[in-house]
């Protein structure tokens, strides 16, 4: 097929344009693999390279290159919507391809010289970039048409994929102009649309991946087959930090289909012609583990330790006024503590990766979320340069943060297996569900202690929030960017920036460093626990003050109109303040929470029924969202619906526990995600906005659990202080 690439704008201009957002940090793996490459690109004129997001085929196809992973959040559709709108393409002619791993062209503009997807940044960091990419493509098509038709460019109209000139009656498709357009100069300045002119943004552009994901043709890593490929299933140590002492592979090797058994740093890998043979081989292995360096505590013991740490002051993350004096002089002090478990991401597609080592290069197939980090690490392992490692970004069957592993765990595991067999065959590493569940990189276990001071007139004048939990960022490539003065920003986000107008506020943090459980961001990261403790505790304070939870929040949100805006909208749509009917023997309640995360604002009102036996049914959740310009309103609704279900899953069921360092859960029987009968009715209301778009993949998660807990408290008078909820406390 004859295709041309319209090269859009230089990287240099993008970096200049986004200098305020470009956070300087250096990736150690990159620095090791390619000295001088990271960090200096922006300043060097030699790096004046084209940025390619758009390809228009002579067949009239418009292909948008997505630099971000599609893991369900709708990024392929969202990025294409932005570009196609400025290009004035017809939505039906637009398709999306995963971009190559190339931090020069495809870096996340919020992350400096690193490519990756996360922090609900895909739309926000790409907004200007994709608009300019589309607009410059449009300008080049117009220039080509103007030349061909000998008319003024200003007289040419582009609409729904057709370029036309009213005066001469000429018109052409993009495909007919593509080859000419390729010879046009890339414009240095492009005029972007006024939001009033948007034809796709803010409308109902349908998902681009619906067809492939409903007929079985969507390609996930699990679906990759290469000639001569072996499938690897690995025996992993039963505790974090344990290693292989010895193993006997004789029984495994006797199984038909098993080709080889190799030791790798992560355990013992069985390679077979197919997955079932590899699994049988793995199960037939006899491995003796060296647990001398293993982490052996249970989660109960970790929590006891954290509670002890919480008795002493931690490092100060936020400090305003004089909390010591305020609490000493308080008329009333309200206090509570909260416990949060380790949580597995438990994406439906367990982690997996395909690696093919060639003579002087390497090719990887993966639901690739963290290109620059993974590429650097794989390259270092094989002694290659990062650009010699080609990453194929496939659809990910969920991630929720897991595929952006700070340590590239499963990607490196696959690469180590290939190294152990000297690259003689491409290898697909398949984690079985139990490998995935016990593979670590969990949302960290946290303990929070809060107290609030009321003065003699009953006003909330002091707030003290102490958190204890492992750092996600320490030891990761993001450490220089996100850990300041010993405070991991993501440990306290949502707590240290409490929006409420309380004159005296102290937030302090303990970060234990001797816990050997690997931890990672889990959809909404710090806000997955801080929203719960702050919003449930505020309702507890409201109860002590005799105030309505919505009214108190609005009183305290005078400086934060966006919080107040979504709160009012959700309360209004949920008929806050009107009575709820309960059936005989049942208790019902309505609860609210509001939280900012990833620069978006979400309020939720939950309606909950509590039965005599303490069991809970969340009947309805009304959500209000302010995420700037709504690129795809239906996708925003879809993400918030999903976030409600994901968060409710954690509130009702989610818990990874350790005993003697061993993870007790293994599959969906012991770590049960939410099922359809538990799903509430959901309404999503979007605040109209012409502001730059902000995140939506994660921000729907944080307010849900506290809204439900506050509804339970409204129904029963009982505030729940641990997740998952202990319904035994609610027996009537």
């Amino acid at each position: 097929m004859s295709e041309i690439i319209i090269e859009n704008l230089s990287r240099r201009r993008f970096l200049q344009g986004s200098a305020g957002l470009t956070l300087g940090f250096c990736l150690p793996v990159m620095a090791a693999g390619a000295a001088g490459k990271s960090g200096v690109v922006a300043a060097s004129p030699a790096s004046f390279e084209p940025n390619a997001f758009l390809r228009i085929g002579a067949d009239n196809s418009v292909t948008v290159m997505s630099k971000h992973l599609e893991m369900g959040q709708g990024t392929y559709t969202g990025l294409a919507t932005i570009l196609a709108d400025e290009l004035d393409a017809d939505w039906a002619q637009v398709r999306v391809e995963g971009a190559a791993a190339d931090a020069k062209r495809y870096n996340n503009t919020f992350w400096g010289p690193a490519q990756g997807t996360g922090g609900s940044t895909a739309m926000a960091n790409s907004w200007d970039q994709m608009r300019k990419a589309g607009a410059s493509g449009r300008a080049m098509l117009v220039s080509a048409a103007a030349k061909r038709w000998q008319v003024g460019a200003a007289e040419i109209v582009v609409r729904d994929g057709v370029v036309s000139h009213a005066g001469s009656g000429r018109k052409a498709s993009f495909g007919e102009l593509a080859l000419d357009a390729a010879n046009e100069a890339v414009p240095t300045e492009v005029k972007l649309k006024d939001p009033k002119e948007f034809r796709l943004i803010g409308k109902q552009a349908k998902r681009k991946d619906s067809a492939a994901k409903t007929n079985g043709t969507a390609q996930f890593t699990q679906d990759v087959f290469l000639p001569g490929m072996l499938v690897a299933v690995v025996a992993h140590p039963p505790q974090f930090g344990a290693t292989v002492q010895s193993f006997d592979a004789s029984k495994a090797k006797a199984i038909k289909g098993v080709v080889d058994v190799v030791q790798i740093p992560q355990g013992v890998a069985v390679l077979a012609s197919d997955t079932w043979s590899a699994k049988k081989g793995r199960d037939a292995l006899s491995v003796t583990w060296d647990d001398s360096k293993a982490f052996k505590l249970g989660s109960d013991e970790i929590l006891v330790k954290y509670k002890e740490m919480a008795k002493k002051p931690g490092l100060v993350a936020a400090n305003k006024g004089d909390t010591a004096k305020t609490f000493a002089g308080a008329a009333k002090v309200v206090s509570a503590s909260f416990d949060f478990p380790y949580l597995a991401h438990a994406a439906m597609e367990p982690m997996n990766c395909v690696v093919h080592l060639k003579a002087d290069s390497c090719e990887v197939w993966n639901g690739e979320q963290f290109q620059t980090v993974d590429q650097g690490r794989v390259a270092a392992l094989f002694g290659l340069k990062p650009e010699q490692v080609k990453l194929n970004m496939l659809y990910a069957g969920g991630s929720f943060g897991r595929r952006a592993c700070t340590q590239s765990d499963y990607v490196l595991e696959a690469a180590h297996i290939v190294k152990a067999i000297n690259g003689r065959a491409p290898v697909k590493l398949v984690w079985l569900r139990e490998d995935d569940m016990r593979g670590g990189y969990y949302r960290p276990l946290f303990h929070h202690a809060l107290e609030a001071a009321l003065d003699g007139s009953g006003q909330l004048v002091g707030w003290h929030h102490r958190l204890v939990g492992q750092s996600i960022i320490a030891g990761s490539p993001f450490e220089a960017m996100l850990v300041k003065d010993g405070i991991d920003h993501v440990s306290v986000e949502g707590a240290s920036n409490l929006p409420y107008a309380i004159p005296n506020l102290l937030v302090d943090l303990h970060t234990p460093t001797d816990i050997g459980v690997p931890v990672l961001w889990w959809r909404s990261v710090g806000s997955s626990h801080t929203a719960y403790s702050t919003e449930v505790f505020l309702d507890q304070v409201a109860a002590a003050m005799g105030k309505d939870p919505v009214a108190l929040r609005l009183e305290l949100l005078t400086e934060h109109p966006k919080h107040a805006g979504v709160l009012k909208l959700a309360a209004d749509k949920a008929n806050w303040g009107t009575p709820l009917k309960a059936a005989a023997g049942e208790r019902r309640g309505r609860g609210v929470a509001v939280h900012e995360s990833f620069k978006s604002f979400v309020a939720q009102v939950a309606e909950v029924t509590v039965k005599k036996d303490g069991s809970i049914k969340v009947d309805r959740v009304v959500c209000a969202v302010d995420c700037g310009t709504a690129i795809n309103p239906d996708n925003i609704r879809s993400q918030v619906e999903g976030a409600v279900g994901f968060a409710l899953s954690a509130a009702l069921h989610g818990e990874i526990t350790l005993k003697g360092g061993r993870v007790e859960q293994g599959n969906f029987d012991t770590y049960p995600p939410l099922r359809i009968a538990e799903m509430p009715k959901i309404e999503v209301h979007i605040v109209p906005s012409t502001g730059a778009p902000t995140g939506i993949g994660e921000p729907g998660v944080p307010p849900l659990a506290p809204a439900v807990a506050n509804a339970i408290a409204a129904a029963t008078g009982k505030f729940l202080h641990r997740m998952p909820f202990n319904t035994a406390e609610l027996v009537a």
Partner: protein
Amino acid sequence: MIKLTINGKVHQLDVAPDTPLLWALRDSLQMTGTKYGCGQGLCGACTVHVDGKPVRACSTPVSAVVGHKIRTIETVDAERVGKVVQEAWRKLDVVQCGYCQSGQIMSAVALLSQNRKPSDADIDTAMAGNLCRCATYVRIRAAIHEAAKALA
């Protein structure tokens, strides 16, 4: 050799009789629409039809389905109910990550083949075995009702 009838075609497979149907489909035939999620019949990502009934392929040995008619997501649109369900899924943009959706659709088609007007309670029962970690359940429910309307 094991002889299986899948999507109307007969396949001869050189696999052990205890091999789960899931891995025979995926690894022997590269019919990858049917997904692995748990290996224990807990998540439904591997749901296929055996003689029209939903079955978890991950915990069904190939020896148990010899002589039976197996249908997978790849040809679910060969019959009207399957086609209508797929269309409803697309109309409502049900999918997110998409990994569980083959299984969801196979369960929904089996439901609607038996019950042309399912209630919410019928849907909860029929779909109870299909997990969706993206929690697309609101739209799964709506799409089943949408398909039921189209089939009426």
